[in-house]
């Protein structure tokens, strides 16, 4: 059961991710991205990270995707114009990707022979209480400092996007 659920949603995530890149129209890409986010949420849930799964759905699949779609609509972006890719990229892109993935898989297989299958439900501690506790004790500094990062991003957006006053 574990394996089947994992395989189904992992495959959906990968297929949707490839589709994001392959599609020429931005809206189709955005919709595929929703698929990626949603299947990732299911994977988090399977691993016992309930809070993360909920946040993934609400924040990414919900809020951020709506924002994406709005921006695409407002800009009235059409289908992407096909540009000729460089010869080297066409020739080497796919083989290098396959080689990289193969190498990674080989290393994981070879170097962690003792690793076993994750048993879903074996891990607990992904609830809101545990996450909140971790955020405000161990990870207090990164959590608070991230607010500066977001503030900088907002300030930057205002600087770059505002109209000239005079």
């Amino acid at each position, binding site marked *: 059961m574990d394996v089947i659920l994992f395989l189904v949603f992992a495959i959906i995530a990968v297929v949707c991710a490839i589709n994001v890149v392959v599609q020429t129209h931005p809206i189709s890409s955005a919709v595929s991205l929703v698929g990626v986010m949603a299947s990732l949420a299911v994977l988090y849930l399977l691993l016992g990270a309930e809070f993360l799964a909920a946040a993934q759905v609400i924040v990414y699949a919900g809020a951020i995707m709506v924002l994406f779609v709005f921006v695409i609509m407002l800009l009235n972006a059409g289908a992407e114009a096909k540009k000729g890719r460089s010869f080297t990229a066409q020739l080497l892109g796919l083989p290098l990707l396959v080689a990289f993935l193969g190498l990674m898989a080989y290393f994981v297989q070879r170097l962690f022979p003792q690793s076993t299958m994750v048993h879903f439900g074996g891990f607990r501690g992904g609830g809101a209480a545990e996450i909140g*506790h971790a955020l*405000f*004790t161990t990870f*207090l*500094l*990164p959590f608070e*400092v991230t607010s500066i*990062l977001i503030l900088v991003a907002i300030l930057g957006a205002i600087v*770059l996007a505002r109209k*000239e006053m005079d």
Partner: protein
Amino acid sequence: MPVNFGATATDLIRFLPEIILTVMGTALMVLDPVLHKRASHAFGHLSIFALLAGIGGAVYAQSNPGTAFGGMLVVDGFATYFRVLVMVVGILTILPSYGFLARQQAETSEYHALLLFSIAGQCMMAAANDLIIVFIGLEISSISSYVLAGYLRDDKRSNEAALKYFLLGSFATAFFLYGVAITYGTVGTVNLTAIRAALSGADAPPVVFITLAAALMFVGLGFKVSAAPFQVWAPDVYQGAPTPVAAFLSAGPKAAAFAVFLRIFLTAFGPIGADWLPLVWMAALLSMTVGNFAALMQTNVKRMLAYSSIAHAGYVLVALTAQSDTGTAAAMFYLAAYAFMNIGAFAVVSHVSGRGERYQNIDDLAGLGRKQPMMAAMLTIFLLSLIGVPLTGGFFGKFYIFKAALESHLVWLAVLGLLNSAVAAYYYLRILVMVYMHEPGEAAGQTEPLTPGFRLALILPALGTLFLGIFPTWVLDCAGKSATLVK
């Protein structure tokens, strides 16, 4: 469940410089509608005040060194040295910005707020002892820098610079993050000290993964310090960015990125030093060669300084390759000397290029020696220091780096580095020939009034360069004492 909020008074004192800078940055945003137009200089004054307070805070924090926030931060001599350095760079960036922003009729409040946030991020990087904090600090510093590079929105080049910097920078950050993820997956921690402990322990994880993680982080950080082969963005960004910002980019974020570089590679990845050595060795050699030979062919001064900054990143990587306390101290000294001389050189370029930054070519400097002798004299000091002539900071910087390389038996790297310095002398001297031996052109004749801030912005780096060249021991002692990283 007992709730224990982590921050104690000691934690907060060790985080003081960042707190001061962030509070002042936020205050500038709030004050903008109140002070708007009537006192556009006030924002600069307030920022300099905040940076001075930040330096005070950093020195005060050093009186009680140690870790903070459960090992996320570490305040040691190394952290304090780089915190003070990036804040001094900040002050030296703000001084020429008064006149520059007025000439370009640009808003001052956001400029200074972004600058303060960027410096806060760099201070955080200098004191980070955990890859999460390194990452957040790096992002705060970078995102503000992207916006600052595109601050002149009416200037197409400035827009181009910001966009290129943003796209390539995000790409590099992704590489860095991938390295962090692999490290966590292999070792199970992102704390630098804990990673070191795990790598030197008896059941150390497979070295292949850690080397892969180190390589990915090397790509990310190599981009931030503009080391070859990740240097392509630098010339375009330095040319397009407003000149004070270009000076800042070449000194502040670079110094902070090198601080992180040294700390991650010497602390966390120290035990596998032999595995990443060839990588840094090659990048150092490539950066020096690519930077110096490309600089030979430039006609635009800002582009030339960009390529020279790539070459100088190569010299500092040589110091990292030495993997010794001497090497770390040499890198620290070099980054301070480089900050002074490069900011000074950019300030002169900023003055000569005039309104709208029209005059940026090397030819435009012709006859500067006759028309504006003081300006030319300053430029001479900075360029001689960039060459590495004795009695300037640049000389001792190079001297200590190559000495450290020789002590670590990297004879070939030292020899190739010295040959590179000889190549570099050519293009710096070419500017001096243009300044003193040619008839004055149209650019040299224009006399923009010198604001007091701008005078300071020239005199302070010049004094710094000469001080480091004549009395290097004081700063070197300081660097030498702090070079032993917490392990």
